[in-house]
C-alpha cells in the first residue's frame, strides 16, 4: 500500500505540473486575446478562402472554404513526403549496398556521396536545386523533348496526361490481382511445407498483376487516352505546354533535395544493417546448400531489416517534417498554404498554428505506427 502511494505521488505531481503549465498558457493567451479584442474560434474554416493555389491534387479554387485549402496543403505535403520516401529508399538502398561493394571505385563514390550530401544543410540544398539547377533550365519554347514526349523547362516539367475512363474498374482489377496473389502465396507455402515443391511465386505474381488490368483493357471496360503536351503561345515571348500535365519546378526541387539528403542517412542504416549480420550466418547458410539469392532473401535480409527499420523510420519522419521547408521555395505545402496564406488572410494565428502542429504530429505518428507494425512483423518471433 505504502509502496503504491509512493509510486503514484510523483506521477500525480508530474500530471499536475503539466496541467498547470498548459493551463497557464491557455489562460495567458485568453487574457491577452481578450484585451486586444481578438476572438477565438474555428468557425473561419467554413468561410470562403478567396485565394488560389498554384498546384493542387484535388479540385480547388478560391470559392472553396479554408478547410478545403487546408486539405489541399495537407495533400501536397503528403505527396512530397511519399515521393521523397520512395526515392530516398531506392537511392539509399543502392548507395548503402554500394558502400559495401568490393569494387574500390563504387565503394568510394558512394562514400563521397554520403559525406557530401549529409553534411550540407538541407535548406541550402533545396535552394541549390531550385535557384541554381532548375532556374538554369531553358524556357519552354527552347526546350528539346526528354524521352520524346516530356519537356523539362524553367516553368516546370511537362509530361503527358493520362485520361482514364472507368478508372475505378482498373483499381478493382489490381485489388483482385493482389488478393489472388495472397492466396497463391499461401498455397505455395503449404505446398513447400507439405511436399517440398516450389512454385515460381514471383513470376506468377507479376503475371497476375499485369494480366488482370490487361483484361479490363482488352474487354474495353477501361479506356486510356494520352494527352501530349503541346506548345502554346501566351504572348510574343511567353510560351507554355498546354494539354499535358505540368509538374511545378518547386515540387521537383523539393523532392530532389529531400530524397538526395535523406538517402544518405538511409544508406548508412542499410550499410549498418547488412554489416550487423555476422559473417558466420552467410557461411552457415552456404554450407547447407542455399543459393546466393536464397541466402540474401532468407538469411541476411530478415536479420538486417531488424536493424535497418527502426533508424530508417526516424529518417522517414525527418523527411516528412523537413518537407515543411517547402515554404522557402513556393511549393504550396501545408505550411505555405495554411500556416502561410490562410493564416495571413484570416489573422487566426493560434487556431491555424495549432491545427498545423496537430497535423504534423498525426502524420508523424501514422508513419511511426506503420513502421512499428512492419518492424513487429519482421521481428524475431520467440516461441
Amino acid at each position: 500500500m505504502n509502496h503504491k502511494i509512493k509510486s503514484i505521488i510523483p506521477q500525480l505531481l508530474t500530471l499536475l505540473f503539466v496541467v498547470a503549465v498548459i493551463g497557464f498558457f491557455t489562460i495567458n493567451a485568453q487574457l491577452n486575446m481578450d484585451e486586444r479584442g481578438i476572438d477565438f474560434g474555428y468557425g473561419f474554416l467554413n468561410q470562403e478562402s478567396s485565394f488560389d493555389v498554384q498546384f493542387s491534387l484535388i479540385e480547388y479554387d478560391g470559392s472553396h472554404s479554408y478547410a478545403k485549402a487546408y486539405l489541399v496543403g495537407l495533400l501536397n505535403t503528403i505527396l512530397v513526403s511519399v515521393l521523397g520516401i520512395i526515392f530516398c529508399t531506392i537511392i539509399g538502398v543502392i548507395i548503402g549496398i554500394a558502400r559495401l561493394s568490393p569494387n574500390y571505385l563504387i565503394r568510394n563514390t558512394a562514400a563521397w556521396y554520403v559525406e557530401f550530401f549529409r553534411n550540407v544543410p538541407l535548406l541550402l540544398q533545396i535552394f541549390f536545386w531550385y535557384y541554381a539547377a532548375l532556374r538554369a533550365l531553358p524556357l519552354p519554347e527552347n526546350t528539346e523533348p526528354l524521352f520524346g514526349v516530356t519537356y523539362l523547362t524553367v516553368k516546370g516539367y511537362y509530361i503527358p496526361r493520362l485520361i482514364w475512363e472507368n478508372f475505378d474498374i482498373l483499381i478493382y482489377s489490381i485489388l483482385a490481382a493482389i488478393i489472388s496473389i495472397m492466396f497463391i502465396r499461401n498455397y505455395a507455402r503449404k505446398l513447400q511445407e507439405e511436399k517440398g515443391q516450389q512454385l515460381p511465386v514471383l513470376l506468377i505474381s507479376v503475371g497476375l498483376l499485369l494480366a488482370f488490368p490487361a483484361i479490363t483493357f482488352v474487354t474495353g471496360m477501361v479506356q486510356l487516352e494520352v494527352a501530349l503536351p503541346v506548345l502554346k503561345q501566351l504572348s510574343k515571348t511567353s510560351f507554355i505546354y498546354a494539354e499535358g500535365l505540368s509538374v511545378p519546378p518547386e515540387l521537383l526541387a523539393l523532392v530532389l533535395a529531400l530524397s538526395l539528403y535523406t538517402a544518405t542517412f538511409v544508406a548508412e542504416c542499410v550499410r549498418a544493417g547488412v554489416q550487423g549480420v555476422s559473417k558466420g550466418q552467410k557461411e552457415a547458410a552456404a554450407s547447407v546448400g542455399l543459393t546466393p539469392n536464397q541466402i540474401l532473401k532468407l538469411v541476411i535480409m530478415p536479420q538486417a531489416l531488424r536493424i535497418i527499420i527502426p533508424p530508417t523510420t526516424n529518417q522517414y519522419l525527418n523527411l516528412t517534417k523537413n518537407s515543411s521547408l517547402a515554404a522557402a521555395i513556393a511549393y504550396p505545402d501545408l505550411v505555405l498554404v495554411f500556416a502561410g496564406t490562410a493564416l495571413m488572410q484570416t489573422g487566426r494565428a493560434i487556431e491555424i498554428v495549432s491545427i498545423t502542429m496537430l497535423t504534423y504530429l498525426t502524420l508523424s505518428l501514422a508513419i511511426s505506427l506503420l513502421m512499428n507494425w512492419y518492424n513487429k512483423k519482421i521481428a524475431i518471433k520467440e516461441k
Partner: protein
Amino acid sequence: MLRTLKTLMYLLTSVALLVSFETGAMAAKKSKTLKKTQKMGFVRCGVSQGLPGFSNADASGNWTGVDVDLCRAVAAATLGDSGKVKFFPLSAKERFTALTSGEIDVLSRNTTWTLSRDADIGLTFVGVNFYDGQGFMVRKSSGITSVNQFKAGVSACTNLGTTTELNMRDFFNSKGIKYEPVTFEKADEVVAAYDAGRCDTYTTDKSGLAAQRIKLSKPNDHIVLPETISKEPLGPVVRQGDAVWEDIVRWSLNVMIEAEEYGITSANADSMKSSDNPAVKRLVGAEGELGAAFGLDNDWSLRIIKQVGNYGESYKRNIADTGILPDRGPNQLWTKGGILYVPPAR
C-alpha cells in the same frame, strides 16, 4: 497660532492631494504603450524587409522611406528624437502577429487597409500614408501592353499573405482566365523568380513594382502595365485597445500632411512660430495645448516637422528623388488635385 498652522497644514495637504490627483489624471491619459515606449527609450517599429522608397536599409543599416519616416515622426513626438526608433524588418506573413503579440508597437509596412484586417484581428488602421493600387509588370519583349492580353496558363509571381493574392484571383476570375499563382514569402524571392522567367508577370502594388523594378537585372526590359486592378490604401497600423497611442500615431501622420498644406517645412518651422495664421501656430506649438491631449508636451508636432519634415519633403526625399515614382499622382494634397486630406489639428 497653532490653529492657523493646522489650517495651513490642512490646506497644504489638500492642495498637494489635488495636485497629485491632477498629475494622476494626466498619467491616466498617458497610454500604456506610450509609457512603455518612454521607459524603453525607443519606438518599436515594424517595417518591410526592403522596399525602396518605403522602408529600406542601406549598407550601414540606416533605414529610409516614407514608412520609416512615420515611425521617426512618432519617435520625435513621444521621445523628442526621431533617431530613437528600433526597426523590425518583417515579412508580410509575420507582420500582424508581431503587432498583436506586442513585439512591435507601430506597424508601418506598406500595409493595405481592409475591413477584415481592421475589424477582425485585433488591429486598428490609423490612416493612409500612400494611396496605391495593384498592377502588373511584364517583359517588354512579350509585346503585352494591357492586362486584357493575358491568356489562360499565365503564371503570376507575387508575395505570400497579401491582399495581392486575393485581388489577383478576383481579377483573373472576372476575366475568366485560368492562371498559375506562384507565391513567395520574401519580395526578393518573387523578384528573382520573375527575373529568371519562372513567371510571365509580377504583380503587386504599383509603387512596389516601381521600386522592385530597380532590383531587376535589366530594369529597362520590363514595363508596368497601365491598368490598376484594385484600391490599396497603405497606412500605419497599431494594436487594438490603446486609444491614446492610436491617436498619437494617427496625428503624427496628420501633422506631417497638414504641415505641407500650410507650407511648414523642416527648414522654416521655427520661424513659423511668429506666423499670423493660428492654424500654423498651433502646428508649431506656439498656440493651443494640442500635446496635452495625448499626455505629450506642446512641441511634439514642431519636433516632427523639424526632425522628419512634412509629408511632401518625405515623399520627395524617398520616392520622387530616388526615381521610383516622380509623379505624386493621388498622393498629392487635396488643394493640388490629389486626395490627401486630413482633419484639422486643433
